[in-house]
């Protein structure tokens, strides 16, 4: 096969994309089809995130130290009909939410990660654990023998809660975006980016807290006073852990230690949502399939129509969803990059421009390794 496009050097492309961002465009090419895909998929994503968020918070608040949380996905509503639905697997795949939570917990970073290692956190959780297992000497004994076991569970619960709260905000942004689009206020990809950016900025300082109620007593695991905030302590680590790093999929990457396919340095991980190849979606060992499966139930009609025009129709809908999803995630990334920039991107001040460019170059060097160029080149043709 002879490639028809001339391969351009990477620094050149970086400059090109810096110029794009400075001129107010997004990472993703602006086209009517992209707009439909992005808004439609974010609508569905918003619905799914809402469910995820509710469940994560439910688990964090009520199932935290349960050894056998049989009904952790039931959100407290246990009845025969719901049980039957769950047995038939006619439900949201909350496993994916937990997967994201675990990835975020594992990669760490941000204020939550730092806080769960502090003595204050230990003291708070220890109090909770002793109260919770007051009448269970066996567990108290285990707690003594394995002193980090239950605290580690509580650290994880903290992440359940933090991610739940983060997704609460994101879900609302995406649903509002869709409503706004339906009203005809969103006309292009940059509009989408701006909308998301506004949403992020509006909630940037929103505090993230975690309180557990036991009997009549409340245990403040993350008090408001610690100052953990939405954007910097959950948003940024989330983007880093889920969009960029991720965890290697068993279905495509070998865990064999002697094959050395997975780097030692977590910073070199590139298995995140922006990098993942959509083609294996639906196959074995590809966790995001769960998300795509969840989203297929909430797609707006216009998007389903679009998907049906494809050769496979609804047969490969999960891959199509994933492709759209990846596009939408580039928009969210654009918003995040813009929001975190040291200065407004359209600044005319030269020193500010210089600082911005340095900042953008850092991001773009990573982003351009992702599927972005492929996605954009496909829309061109």
């Amino acid at each position, binding site marked *: 096969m002879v490639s028809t496009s001339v391969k351009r050097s990477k620094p050149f492309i970086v400059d090109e994309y810096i110029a794009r961002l400075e001129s107010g465009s997004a990472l993703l090419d602006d086209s009517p089809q992209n707009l439909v895909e992005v808004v439609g998929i974010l609508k569905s994503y918003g619905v799914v995130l809402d469910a995820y968020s509710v469940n994560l918070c439910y688990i964090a608040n009520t199932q935290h130290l349960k050894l056998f949380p049989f009904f952790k996905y039931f959100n407290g509503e246990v009845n025969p009909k719901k049980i039957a639905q769950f047995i038939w*697997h*006619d439900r949201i*795949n909350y496993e994916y939410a937990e997967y994201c939570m675990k990835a975020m917990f*594992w990669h760490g970073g941000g204020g939550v990660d730092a806080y769960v290692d502090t003595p204050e956190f230990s003291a708070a959780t220890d109090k909770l654990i002793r109260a919770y297992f007051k009448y269970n000497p066996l567990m108290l004994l285990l707690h003594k023998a*394995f002193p980090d076991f239950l605290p*580690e569970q509580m650290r994880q619960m903290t992440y359940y809660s933090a991610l739940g709260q983060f997704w609460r905000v994101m879900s609302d942004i995406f649903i509002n975006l869709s409503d706004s689009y339906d009203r005809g206020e969103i006309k292009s990809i940059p509009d989408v980016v701006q909308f998301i950016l506004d949403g992020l900025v509006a909630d940037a300082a929103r505090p993230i807290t975690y309180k557990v109620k036991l009997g009549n007593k409340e245990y403040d695991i993350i008090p408001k006073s610690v100052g953990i905030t939405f954007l910097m302590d959950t948003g940024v680590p989330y983007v880093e852990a889920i969009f960029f790093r991720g965890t290697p999929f068993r279905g495509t990457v070998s865990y064999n*230690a002697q094959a050395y396919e997975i780097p*030692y340095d977590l910073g070199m991980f590139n298995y995140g949502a922006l990098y993942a190849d959509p083609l294996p979606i639906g*196959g074995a060992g590809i966790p995001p399939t769960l998300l795509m499966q969840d989203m297929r*139930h909430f797609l707006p009609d216009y998007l389903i129509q679009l998907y049906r025009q494809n050769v496979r129709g609804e047969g490969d809908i999960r891959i199509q969803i994933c492709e759209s999803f990846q596009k939408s995630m580039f928009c969210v990334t654009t918003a995040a990059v813009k929001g975190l920039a040291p200065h407004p991107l359209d600044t005319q001040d030269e020193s500010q421009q210089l600082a911005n460019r340095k900042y953008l170059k850092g991001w773009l060097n990573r982003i351009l390794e992702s599927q972005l160029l492929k996605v954009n080149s496909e829309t061109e043709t």
Partner: protein
Amino acid sequence: MTDFLLENFWVIPLYSLIGAVITLPWSLGIIRQTGPRPAAYINILMTVVGFVHGSIIFNLIWTRPAEQFVYHWLQVADLDLTLSFELSPVSFGALELVTGISLLVQLYALGYMEKDWSLARFFALMGFFEATLAGLALSDSLLLSYCLLEALTLSTYLLVGFWYAQPLVVTAARDAFLTKRVGDIALLMAIVALSSYGEGLNFSELETWVTGHQLDPTVAALLGLALIAGPISSCAQFPLNLWLDEAMEGPNPAGIMRNSIVVSAGAYVLIKLEPVTTLSPISADALIIVGVITAIGTSLMAIAQIDIKRALSHSTSAYLGLVFIAVGLRQVDIAFLLLFCHAIAKALLFMSAGSVILVTNNQNISEMGGLWSRMPATAMSFVVGAAGLIGVAPLGMFWTYQRWFSGSWDVDWWLLLLVMFVNTFSAINLTRLFRVIFLGEPQVKTRRAPESPWLMAVPMVSLMVVTLITTLAPIQWPLWLSPNIPLPLDQSELINQYATPLLIVSGALGCAIASTMSVRKAWARSSNFTVRFFQDLLAYDFYIEKLYEVTVIAAVSSLSKFTSWIDRYVVDGAVNLVSLATIFSSSALKYNVSGQSQFYLATILIGVGLLLWSMLNGQWSVVTNYWSSIM
């Protein structure tokens, strides 16, 4: 009710097979709107049914002598192929082990694989896997066992190939199938031969045939060697051991089954075949030699592995090597005990390893550390599993060794030395693993490690309890199976007196060495060239794979290229020439190229018509003249 269950004992393997078939709507993608978990629940339910059914029968027949049930499968010409099943405490003990571990593994898999959308396919394969293993446990016919071993080969291929899009899985699945297939074909050769010589292919018939016949020694030796080839490949013995290493690319729950039950299934067939395989001293010696080489070689390989699953899987080969030796010495009871204790302890170790892998997203032990206090179930499982495997703590393997060397069996010093060697290296390996995984400071990948969810913790804890309980098995085992009767215990020899303390010392020595040796951390390598050389030599399995590449694989591929070339240029050309086709077809091609194929077709049609006409008229001479004119 119990009679009914007893009469229909043969359905037990079918339960899980039915479960596997029921998963088809999900695994074929017919049901797409909802998820695949019902398939998993159905399979677990089927396994429970099988387990309960088996338990009831096990209880009933516990004191009864073995019974055979023969099913006439196919009678054709002078051949009568029968499939027979055995109803005995041993076969049902094996069945209970299969269904029991399978049940725990499937529960475990529900947790381990929770974010894999191909869950239905996985459980279908597990059901198929379990069905073949359960069938093997009950089978009393070499033919049936062969069929099931083949089915096992297929299900191993499919399970290893479960993550089919991952490049290393592709080669691993292929190699697993082909390696096992090599052994299976040899076994099939032996079966064809045995069936031609003997009276029947049931194990009991084989036994009477062997005792009643005087076989030519060469034939007996060849037969014995071909028969052990099957178990060599399925038990991952040298030189067909590498597939097990590669098979670790597959999902861990399947790996648990593979390292505990599947390898044991091959050895189980070997044990059943013992009367035939040890008929010739050559094949009996071959068993012992293979066992010794594997036990030593894989013990060494295991301690150099940095992959948690591979470090454990090489040790599997080592223990199966001991089983081979026991069978070669015709000490079948010991072989059974070794298998049993190893299967349970190894399953537990693999469960623990899977939990570590899932939590840390990592299999490289040099990147681990400090998990002890955060993962109690996982850590305890590892400790108990290791204790069950090393002959130092008073658990299963210790009592097995103790019985082996207590004076009941004819043992020799070399055997004791070998067992001590395996024990020491096993102790080194497991202690080393324990240190780097659970002790020390957490590294970046083990910094955040909450204990696995209950679906994985419950099977681990249950199996831990089972491991502790089954310590009784070697102590209580009645010793009734071996063809040579245990020796009378009148006067214990020197070896019997010193064996137990020596074994304890060997295990303790291993633990001590591993506690003091330096361990590799975070991809770091020793700067000493000799150390690196031996590390690599062992880590890459003595480069056996490379050896295969330059020998067998190279031979087959160059032979195929050669024949293909011959076919293309020599045979095709020559035959074309001889059969006049060259003259004809070259002109035919010319016609075709010039686009006159229509004309040409007409010519041929007329030609064939003329041919027929001339023949009908008996004008043979016309035909011969026609052809000779072309000539």
